[in-house]
């Protein structure tokens, strides 16, 4: 121990006991809270301020979005199972659950693509009214985050065939998991504030 010194990104004892990369991820997610918080605030500020339609109540299909929200929530369960598998060294199960998580993420994104298209056909674009502006930008940025998450999940899946994901390096999966759960939680807030709390 006395000589394998301070290659800063390797697993050394840290002052806090938290791995550097894990601390980085937590800080990043803290920063992301302000990011989504700002977009959600802008949405709430402009609620009921559209001068022309279509309005949210004309477009929202709550049962449909509830299903896609449920799908995204379930992806957090499969994410947990993927991490549990690799922590036990079960590479095969981890791959299955990673693929399942990616698949559920893709289903959610498909649902979002369908929803965007449906709204567009009803005449809602970025420039139509305040609802279009704030809705598409907020949910679009969330969708972009889910897309990045799916890419990371698929990358982990691919890396596992190169022997890069092992029980010892399960932190990789844990970090992707933290990100994935965060994106899920943000969606819970968005779904509640934007879909369920209906404007008067």
């Amino acid at each position, binding site marked *: 121990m*006395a*000589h*394998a*010194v*301070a*290659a*800063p*990104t*390797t697993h050394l*004892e*840290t*002052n*806090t*006991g*938290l791995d*550097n990369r894990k*601390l*980085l991820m937590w*800080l*990043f997610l*803290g*920063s*992301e809270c*302000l*990011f989504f918080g*700002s*977009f959600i605030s*802008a949405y709430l*500020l*402009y609620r009921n*301020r*559209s*001068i022309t339609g279509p309005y949210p109540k004309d477009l929202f299909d709550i049962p449909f979005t509830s299903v896609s929200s449920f799908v995204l929530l379930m992806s957090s369960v499969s994410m947990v199972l993927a991490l549990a598998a690799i922590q036990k060294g079960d590479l095969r199960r981890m791959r299955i659950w990673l693929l399942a998580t990616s698949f559920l993420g893709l289903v959610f994104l498909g649902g979002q693509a369908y929803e965007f298209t449906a709204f567009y056909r009803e005449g809602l674009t*970025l*420039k139509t*009214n*305040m609802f*279009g*502006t*704030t809705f598409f*930008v907020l949910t679009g*940025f969330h969708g972009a985050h889910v897309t990045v998450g799916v890419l990371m999940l698929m*990358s982990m899946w691919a890396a596992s065939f190169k022997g890069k994901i092992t029980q010892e390096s399960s932190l990789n999966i844990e970090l992707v998991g933290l990100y994935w759960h965060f994106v899920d939680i943000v969606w819970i807030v968005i779904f509640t504030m934007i879909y369920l709390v209906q404007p008067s």
Partner: protein
Amino acid sequence: MAGATLTPKRVTMADAVRETRAGSYNGIWSWISTVDHKRIGIMYGLTSFFFFLVGGLEALLIRVQLARPENSFLSPDQYNRIFTMHGTTMVFLVVMPMSAAFFNLLVPLMIGARDVAFPRLNAFSFWTFFFGGIFMNLSFFTGGNILHGDIGAPDAGWFGYAPLTLNKFSPGNGVNYWLIGLQILGIASLAGGFNFIVTILNMRAPGMSLFRMPLFVWMTLVTSFLLIFAMPVIAVALFELMFDRLFDANFFNAAKGGTPLLWQHMFWLFGHPEVYILILPAMGIVSEVLPTFSRKPLFGYPFVVFSGVAIGFMSWGVWAHHMYTTGLGSVANSAFGVSTILITIPTGVKIFNWMATLWGGSISFKTPLYFSIGFIAMFTIGGLTGVTHSIVPSDYQQQDTYYVVAHFHQVLFGGAIFGLFSGIYYWFPKFTGRMLSEAWGKLHFWLMFIGFNLTFQPMMVLGLLGMPRRIVTYPDGYGWSFWNALATFGAFMIAASILVFIYNVIVSLRKGEIAGEDPWDARTLEWTIPSPPPPYNFAVVPQVHALDDFWHRKYTEDAEGRPVPIPAGASDPVAVADHDDGHGDGHGIHLPSPSYMPLIASAGFPLIGLGLIYDAALVAVGAAVLVVGLYLWVLEPPTEA
């Protein structure tokens, strides 16, 4: 974790030199691919100094235009673009990155680490900043023939108030370059913020508890937290503006129900923490310089730490004092007035602590101390004029006058820039191995100090005489002509002082006195190692026993509390490093390998930016460059085993 469980790690100097980045430490490519925090710090410093000259030139153009009434040196259009770029440059391309230069150079050395937590992310921060700065300034060349004075720079002010920034009022691409450029710079700041928080929380040497950290490290920590929470807010505001300008969204479009005031709220919610992002690093520098040259510990260290932390928290609750005249109502105005008055308390605590540090010290009047004392004096005036702004009815009168311009230059130039120069004079010997000339340094100080006061005190008078900001010219006979001429004279004096500084640097780099390890008889860990420091910083990871540990290794106290030197070498931590204690097993210090990937990844951002403005296909190219760079980065092992 720090402390008992970690024994000092020993290697011989010879081992370290042999095994550290062998053969890769020379030539231009070694700089381009470097992940060494000291080199990244130097590159941050040089780049930000270059932009300081650019921003200074813009300031001189403004002052020449305003030197006399009814002047037509610049057209109104040129004037708008120049003052926009002056403000943007000085905030985002000078003070922030120059502070980042000091974070890079000093934080690992001060906490006894061999590098930052994520060296490649650190290089990524630098290159992203570098490309962002170039991207922003490219806008000058997009207005037609620049030789005929057709400049295309943004023209809506550094604050970018909507609806001035919307296509209707600012056609052309200037504001597009501005908003995308700021977005890129924001990514650099975020990456740096994450990196320094992790470094400071996780990488301290054994025994370096939080309350043994040098004040500068504390201020870096607070600044980094402000960065990671403030940058996303401006990022969202800039995205909203981008969607309005490029994709016809309505965030700030009053005709569709949007409110331009949203921009002001978001800009200042970012902007006021940003003010402290600009000043806290300079406060950290001053808090290191004063104890060294007073030969006393910093007076009330915990109070200064907690004041800095308090400023960090309170900076989130004062933003609307930039918006008293927007009609928020008397309740909101009063609340923000009170919070603004309250934030002066921790700032005042610091000023008194600095003065008490000097009090009774055996003061050594060297150039760094001149700049630090200049900082305290000028920043106090700036702070007091700030208090006058916090009073709502008084602010109604001062809003948009030169009094405001004088105030924020008093804190950002008189404060931040003086503090940063203090740091340059103080740590130059550490990183170059040579001292800057004291004689030229003092000439620099006096020229800058007098020039500064001749430039900005007249602006106080001009503001009280009612001269509005941002006007391209003014008629004679308002009593403004003399003060404007005086301010212009002062600005050229500042320019002259900068030439003196450049001369001093060039001469001292070649002929300056050799510094040695500890030229100032200083207190913190960076002075225990050679100047310039070796790539691995510390041959032996130091064991820290106290605040100002190095000082306590050199001095003990007599009955009256006066420092008494300990015989040389008796407890010098470096002395242990030079002889192998028999535990060596041939492993050297493994430092992270150089990498081109951060550079490649960050080169994607300006391409994406140009693509957003001109051609969507280029967005795809830029995104591909970014993604490929990131993947290669992840796949590349951080250290050659």
